[in-house]
């Protein structure tokens, strides 16, 4: 088997020659998006014959790092060397020519086409049907990936589609294969199959594999070496054999357990805490790259003193929101919400921690009246709600601040005032006719209260900065009377706390533990569609949290 492209290194066969330079060496990689430091002087070495796990929460920087490696955008500083030769990877084509390939989460597959057609898509020249089919079969057989080149992709299971993506990736015979959270859609068995394929790829072909994951089990089982990232920095590198779940969890989530829980208990988190090199400041890298926004304007507490760290939620009557054993089908064949149960009481903030992709989006969609439940119940103030009908949650006074505020939260082509009244029209315009004057007054009030930076209520939404747009969505949802709010990844902790103080029950879904700890009274962890466990604010044990987030019921 020969290597392609610029590589000059010989294959390492079984126990063969160890090549002098690693396949990829990234040094001092830094990348900034506006105020957000996604990667901070990151060093990463990817050697042949090794599966390197890249562990971290969302926003840790691992995906960003790999995207730079595959040429989607350049680093601000730092170097990347491939096989010892420094390279500038300008675009994905260049990366492919250098032998670096990433297995996409099948957004590059076309359902109506067959497997072999998908694999050959993007190549040039005549379509050599038989040749393509043969190649697919060869690759599939070599790596133990059972797929039929003639099947249509839309007929395949998710695991099979994953395998097609892998074949598509491997057809160019790359020397570095990157997988980004590959098992988020696979069953346990399918994951096992994947790992054995990776093992083979690495041992027999001398390729290098980078496995991005947030799942501790996966890292422990599949990787040889692990690099743990947090907040854009590499915090630890170790051989997987030296690691265990606790160590990984701790590193993934943060070192200073004691200090932080104390601080959390004292309600001091909203001030800047510099401890152990960790600044707890909301202007740090927020959780999910997709909603990176300007959070700088949100941090100043504006003189509202934090209420005391302990709040006693009114537990006397039925919880404001109760989900019991809720099941919602996911698109991938296994349930997105898998027996989820939680309670939120009036005046309390329940934080849902967990890495993205474990059902949080579905939970948000459910509470936005977009999904119907397959089993279980959703009750507001003790009254069950018929889910799935448009507006059912709104009528029950549940407001939602969606994750992706652009798409779901606001209409960019409308004005700020219009966006502020959008979801509450029935209340604000009870007689069907909108009074523009009243709308503007209401909008002006919210703009003032939430400190949204815009010249007037009639400013087009699209001209606001990301942070201010988020404030608009927040302002809208938090102002629902006696409403229940579902939070998104960014928020203004003061506002949320104020709402809670007013008796609103808040369900805050976030992938950033620090954000949750800043406001939540209780923290629950979501993994694969259910709640792994919960703990009260004062008892937060980050290690335990990390374990739960990684899939270990603790």
């Amino acid at each position, binding site marked *: 088997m020969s290597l392609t492209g610029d590589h000059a290194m010989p294959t390492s066969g079984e126990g063969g020659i160890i090549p002098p330079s690693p396949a990829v060496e990234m040094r001092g990689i830094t990348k900034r*998006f*506006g105020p957000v430091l996604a990667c901070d002087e990151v060093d990463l070495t990817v050697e042949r014959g090794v599966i390197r796990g890249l562990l971290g929460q969302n926003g840790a920087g691992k*995906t*960003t790092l790999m*995207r730079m490696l595959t040429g*989607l*955008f350049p680093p601000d500083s730092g170097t990347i060397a491939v096989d010892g030769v420094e390279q500038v990877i300008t675009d994905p084509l260049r990366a492919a020519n250098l032998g670096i390939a990433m297995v*996409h*989460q099948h*957004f590059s597959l076309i359902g109506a086409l067959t497997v072999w057609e998908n694999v050959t898509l993007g190549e040039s020249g005549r379509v050599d049907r038989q040749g393509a089919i043969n190649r697919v079969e060869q690759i599939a057989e070599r790596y133990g990936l059972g797929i039929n080149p003639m099947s249509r992709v839309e007929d395949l299971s998710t695991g099979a589609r994953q395998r097609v993506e892998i074949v598509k990736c491997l057809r160019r015979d790359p020397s570095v294969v990157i997988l980004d959270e590959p098992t*988020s859609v696979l069953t346990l068995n399918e994951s096992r199959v994947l790992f054995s394929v990776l093992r083979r790829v690495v041992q027999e072909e001398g390729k290098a594999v980078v496995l991005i994951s947030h799942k501790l089990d996966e890292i422990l089982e599949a990787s040889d070496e692990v690099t743990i990232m947090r907040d854009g920095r590499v915090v630890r590198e170790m051989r997987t054999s030296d690691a265990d779940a606790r160590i990984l969890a701790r590193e993934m989530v943060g070192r200073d357990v004691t200090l932080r829980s104390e601080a959390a208990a004292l309600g001091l988190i909203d001030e800047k805490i510099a401890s152990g090199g960790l600044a707890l400041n909301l202007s740090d890298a927020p959780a999910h*790259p*997709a*909603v*990176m926004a*300007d959070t*700088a304007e949100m941090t100043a507490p504006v003189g509202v003193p934090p209420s005391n760290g302990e709040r006693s939620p009114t537990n006397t009557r039925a919880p404001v929101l109760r989900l019991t054993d809720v099941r919602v089908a*996911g*698109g*991938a064949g296994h349930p*997105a919400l898998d027996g989820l149960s939680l309670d939120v009481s009036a005046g309390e903030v329940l934080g849902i921690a967990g890495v*993205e*992709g474990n059902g*949080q*989006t*579905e939970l948000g969609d459910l509470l*936005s*009246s*977009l999904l119907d439940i397959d089993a279980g119940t959703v009750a507001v103030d003790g009254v069950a709600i018929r889910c799935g009908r*448009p*507006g059912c949650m*709104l*009528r029950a006074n549940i407001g*939602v601040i969606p994750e*992706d505020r*652009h*798409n*779901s*939260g*606001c*209409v*960019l*082509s*409308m004005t700020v005032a*219009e966006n502020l009244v*959008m*979801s509450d*029209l*029935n209340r604000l*315009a009870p007689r*069907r*006719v*909108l009074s523009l004057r009243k709308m503007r007054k209401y909008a002006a009030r919210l703009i003032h209260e939430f400190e949204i930076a*815009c*010249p007037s209520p009639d400013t087009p939404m*699209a*001209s*606001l*900065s*990301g942070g201010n747009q988020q404030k608009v969505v927040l302002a809208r949802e938090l102002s629902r009377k006696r409403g229940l709010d579902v939070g998104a990844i960014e928020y203004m902790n003061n506002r949320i706390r104020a709402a809670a103080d007013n008796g609103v029950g808040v369900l805050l879904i976030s992938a950033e533990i620090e954000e949750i700890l800043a406001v939540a009274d209780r923290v629950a962890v979501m993994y694969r569609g259910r709640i792994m466990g919960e703990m009260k604010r004062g008892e937060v044990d980050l290690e335990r949290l990390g374990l739960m987030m990684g899939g270990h019921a603790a």
Partner: protein
Amino acid sequence: MTFIDQQVDITTDFEPEEDAPIPTREIRYRRAILLVVAYAVSIAVALGLSAILIAATNHSPHDAFEALYTGSLKTRGAWGRTIEQAGPLLLVALGSVIANRAGVFNIGQEGQVLIGAFAGTLVALKVPGPHHLILVLTLIAAFAGGAAWAGIAAGLNIWRGLNVVITTLLLIFIAQEFVQFAVTRAWFLQQSNALGIASPQSDIIAPGLHMPVIGSPPKFYLQSGFLVALGFTIIVAFLLARTRWGFRLKMLGHNPNAARHAGVSVVAVGGAALLISGGFAGLAGGVLLTSTVFSLQPAMANNVGWEGLLVALVARNRPVAVVFVALFFGALRAGGGFLTTTGVPSYLVDVIQAFMVLATLFPPMFMSWLDRRRVRRAAAPRRVPTTPVPEIAPAR
């Protein structure tokens, strides 16, 4: 839609720290002037091309344009003709505006006009009663007929997810054959004294059922159909700008996702929009029936449906602008009849009209290109300003 589909690309989802420059008043004025200039240039180009075409075929552009002008705007009688032509166009366009605003693309107006006329004819010929009442009922029936015809497409979309554009298109031709069928069957609507007339039609409706006309040609005359259309324009403009329903409609058209999150029922609002647009087209058919044609004829729509749709699009779905564009198109139609006196085939009008529509496509594209250049933001996920074609029902 699973969480997998929400892979997002970091490069396209990020926004910069600074606020995008909010257009100051000065910039807004400049922009408005630029827009007017762009339109003027485009229209001038269109007219110029038309003139070249006329000249190239050995006719006189001057004579041709003069004939157009004479037929449409020169005399008071001409104005009357223009307004008469504009009325049905305006009605169809209003319906299109509503549908387009909701993001539903109905292109079947040409058929809905016919079915509206058909329904109106049924009432006009078969329902006895005092004339004023029957006239009103006729128009109501016309609205209902058009709405029902569009409703077929709505139903197919909601029930089976069929693309609204395709279904409304196909229904046009079915409507045409249906009406042809109706007026060639004695038991149905065929004219009672048909003496082998080449162009079949229904019985002529009673004179008392004609829509009133103020004044009479050759002096200025005003078809009440146009007044009706104007009245509806005001109503529609109000509904769109000032009511909850209009607000929800706009939300749906701009961002169906956000609309759903805000509790807007895509089916209810989108479906209603489609029905109403069909209804207006049907009403236009009713107006044609009771103002100019006076019987059901298979060819009576005469492109009112197609042109009304184009009027709405040229006017960028703004109710007020629609009035002026409708008048303009009406003028073209009215003037076209006079062209033949100059030896220029009346088809020229279609050519001019088409050039005009094509010309008006450019200014908005030009402006958004300018906007993109001025506001240098990293692209946030947003739709480019083509009229979207989402379905009424949420994606399967």
